[in-house]
């Protein structure tokens, strides 16, 4: 018995694959936007070296617990906790909502630590210069500290975002119809598992490359400027 690859059997289900790509991109887009904002907020809370801009102790502790909890447990456990566990506490979420929340919460924790590294690398002199120019705390953080911080850590952020996008493949386990779910469904119908996973492997690869270029382009244009 030779392995005869029959890609047409898989590609014939292109509407399913297309829907899968759309869901994977939607999950990633929400995770990137909300997760990064959450990460920045948490990084601000946890970031040291601001003197009087320190957040209250209890908030620091809370964010610390959040970051450690998420970074030290597997994504699938977090996802199952939200989807299968929370209904017991009265929060019933659809598979899609649970996936969105899990992705945002997951990226938020990692982004917090990555961005914090960038913030802490900001020379004190810059902050002092901003204060001496009568910028208030928010202006100092948003205009002086954050842009160079993001620029320093952007390659790390992009890697983490790609990891989270690839991690969205786990969301198919709770019946969110993303790309891996599509492949699993196709191969369970026509038993072309090898071809199905080659096809989505290539799609994930292309999505990752495109996402990296897209994020670099967007960031250079809107977040911290070129040069």
């Amino acid at each position: 018995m030779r392995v005869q690859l029959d890609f047409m059997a898989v590609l014939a289900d292109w509407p399913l694959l297309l829907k899968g790509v759309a869901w994977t991109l939607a999950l990633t887009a929400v995770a990137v936007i909300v997760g990064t904002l959450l990460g920045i907020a948490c990084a601000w809370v946890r970031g040291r070296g601001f003197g009087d801009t320190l957040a209250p102790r209890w908030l620091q502790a809370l964010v610390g617990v959040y970051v450690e909890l998420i970074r030290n447990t597997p994504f699938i456990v977090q996802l199952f906790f939200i989807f299968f566990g929370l209904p017991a506490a009265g929060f019933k979420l659809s598979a899609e909502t649970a996936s969105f929340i899990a992705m945002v919460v997951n990226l938020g924790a990692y982004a917090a630590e990555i961005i914090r590294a960038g913030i802490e690398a900001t020379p004190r002199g810059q902050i002092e210069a901003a204060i001496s120019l009568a910028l208030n705390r928010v202006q100092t953080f948003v205009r002086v500290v954050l842009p160079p911080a993001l620029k320093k850590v952007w390659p790390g952020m992009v890697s983490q975002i790609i990891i989270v996008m690839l991690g969205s493949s786990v969301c198919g386990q709770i019946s969110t119809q993303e790309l891996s779910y599509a492949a699993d469904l196709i191969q369970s119908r026509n038993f072309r598992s090898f071809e199905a996973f080659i096809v989505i492997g290539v799609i994930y690869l292309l999505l990752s490359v495109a996402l990296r270029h897209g994020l670099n382009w967007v960031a250079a244009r809107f977040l911290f400027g070129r040069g």
Partner: protein
Amino acid sequence: MKPTKRLFSIAIAALLASAAVQAQTALDDVLKSKTLKVAIPTDSAPYGYVGTDLKPIGLDIDMANYIGKKLGVAVELVPVTSANRIPALQTRKADLVISTLGKNAEREKVIDFTIAYSPFFQAVFGPKTLPAKSFADLAGKSVGVTRGAMEDQELGKVAPPSTDTKRFEDNNATIAAFVSGQVQFVALGASVAGNMMAKNPQLDSEYKLLLKDSPNFIGVAKGEDKLRTRVNEIIAEAKKNGDIDTMAKKWLGRPAGDLPL
């Protein structure tokens, strides 16, 4: 780009070569290596599940050991999920699939089946408060099902288009979705569902609609007629001497009944 291209063709060639050397040798391989690799379920009580000592037990596991004993070889159990059962055969991770495997035309295209060895039926289950007299009543309702299982295909044929079918990776996830209220109905094998309802009396759920009466068969890789014939002999003999009924009584609480060939 050249070296990348070359590497890719080498990989493909190696893959094809490794696949080409397998032709009707499964039985000989089993007898030579003295081990029979059997794909079994661990999420389908009482056919195959994990006992209190964390080892797989159940009717399918007993059947695997029974065949191993008759062949005079050791049995290596390979736990698989519903969706993995057929790929496990195709990739030779298992010589036999004894895993609540039903027979249908799509599956017969890619693997071969022995005669049936145990009874099974699939159905839709749901809470008593939610009436479902026919499949039309499932319109607009969410139904949990295990991806790639027989229930998945059967449900697709009979459920109205507006049914929200939620597919999960294995029976445990499907059951968890129903127990946690994430789906309104659930399509499962009868014994699996029976076990679920016994463990979760608070759900107050019941049998609703029959999907399919489908006894279990043992799957062998396509074209492995020598192995298939030998296993058929073993099953036929076990049917005659009552061993099949003994196993069915032990795990299902009733004799195997009339099983198709």
